[in-house]
């Protein structure tokens, strides 16, 4: 198994994979705690339209996907906040229409010979040098922004109304958060694939949530689980000859179920020192 580490494509995939695992896990903590899983899935599917547009225009599909995903995220946010449409309805509409656009774009291409399968389900072989740089650049940008707005993101995730009342611009922080989700999706799709990227955002954070009641510790645990899943999944996918995204996500899911079984939250509920007072 060690000889695969000698291949340049594997080194690129592992480097990108570790960054993806960490960034997805950190953004995933906000997504899980704020209940944005469906928005994450919607934005991920929107990236299909962006990728197809890139192929059509002959540009790097990741670059066109950035614009496409950001536009979709803001579209969902605007429709959900400013109109009478519920958030999940807004996601449902954007989800389907952006995929439909992608299918149209592909239809417009004369005789396509494009590795769409790789984009949909992830492929380590497809991670080129430019893709690694895009992943590293976007990953660094997302982490810097999370660091700069750490307390605002925490407050708005926990209690947006109180944040607003005490002078934290909750609306703008919400848009910042869904923009970060969009960028995280884009930087992940080469390795994990469009279909599975939302799982990689949600699952490590959900597993970490089972194991701790401290916010920073949850984030640290999510990163450990996320990075282990991507690196472990990539290393396994090569000898097993399986799709990298699927292997990564199934590994993370396995960790989630183990965490759920071991969860102190699960065993604590009926404890005598914790009177049940909620209706």
């Amino acid at each position: 198994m060690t000889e695969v580490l000698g291949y340049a494509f594997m080194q690129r995939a592992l480097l990108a994979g570790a960054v993806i695992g960490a960034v997805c896990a950190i953004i995933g903590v906000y997504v899980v705690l704020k209940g944005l899983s469906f928005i994450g899935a919607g934005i991920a599917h929107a990236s299909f339209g962006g990728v197809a547009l890139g192929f059509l225009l002959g540009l790097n599909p990741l670059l066109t996907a950035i614009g496409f995903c950001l536009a979709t995220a803001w579209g969902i946010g605007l429709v959900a906040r400013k109109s009478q449409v519920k958030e999940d309805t807004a996601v449902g509409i954007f989800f389907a229409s952006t995929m439909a656009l992608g299918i149209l774009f592909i239809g417009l291409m004369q005789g396509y010979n494009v590795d769409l399968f790789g984009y949909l389900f992830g492929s380590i072989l497809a991670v080129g040098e430019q893709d690694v740089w895009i992943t590293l650049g976007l990953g660094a940008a997302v982490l810097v922004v999370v660091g700069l707005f750490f307390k605002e993101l925490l407050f708005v995730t926990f209690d947006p109304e109180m944040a607003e009342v005490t002078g934290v611009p909750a609306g703008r922080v919400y848009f910042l958060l869904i923009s970060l989700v969009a960028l995280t999706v884009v930087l992940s799709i080469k390795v994990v694939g469009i279909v599975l990227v939302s799982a990689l955002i949600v699952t490590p954070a959900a597993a970490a949530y089972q194991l701790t009641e401290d916010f920073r510790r949850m984030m640290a645990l999510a990163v450990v689980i996320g990075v282990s899943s991507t690196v472990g999944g990539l290393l396994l996918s090569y000898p097993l000859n399986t799709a990298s995204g699927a292997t990564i996500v199934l590994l993370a899911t396995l960790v989630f179920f183990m965490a759920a079984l071991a969860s102190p939250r699960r065993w604590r509920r009926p404890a005598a020192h914790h009177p049940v007072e909620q209706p």
Partner: protein
Amino acid sequence: MANTTSPIIRLTHVDVIFQDVLVLEDVSLNVAPGDFLAIIGPNGAGKTTLLRVILGLVRPASGAVRLFGKAPWELNGERRRVGYVPQVLSVDLNFPVRAEEVVLMGRYGRVGLFRRPSSDDRAAARRAMERVGIADLADRPLARLSGGQRQRAFLARALANDPDLLLLDEPTTGVDVAATESLYELLRRLHEEGITILVVSHDVGVVASYVDGVVCVNRRLVAHGRPEEVLGSEAMTQMYGCEAMFFHHGRVPHIVVEKEP
């Protein structure tokens, strides 16, 4: 109220409309510095909306709102003079956060962007926790606090900016009887320390023995006066319908409202 100083809160002929439904109609209310008022009324009467109007989270369709003499959405530094304790069910009570962090959040707006809370901010959070008697629970995760402790944590968050005005929305939801009494005792002490308090409550009987004024809201402002005047008045009957029953116990009348089947 008899107070002649300029009111902290002044609502004049406020109408609030949500999706074509009139939630509040022609509500006028003055709250003077030093008042301790309970807002009562049936479910869906617009009590929470009234607080949200005062906070500037909801804008009235017509009428005027003044908080410290300004429109609530135009407040800057004065915003910190208001402490708010929202309904407990508005947040995820299993959120992985410790009591101290919850209280410290009250200071985040003042800390400002790109900065971390200073030792002053931490000291203020610590003082607020001492004020409500939960300093020993600083490291306790939110999910491991009892109902009463949790409400004290949210109250401490509201106190972290040393506010002059406290707005509380159903602070005793999910809190047992003993803890409810001690929470109101705590509010009475804060009131004696000079804080103006407005509390939305359904514990009509309990709250009446602590506050010095009761405001009945049922879309319109039905009554506003001293507890013993308002409770047991025609307004109450009007508000709760003919199923309401009064009986006297202690200083003030209690009200029992039979739930519809």
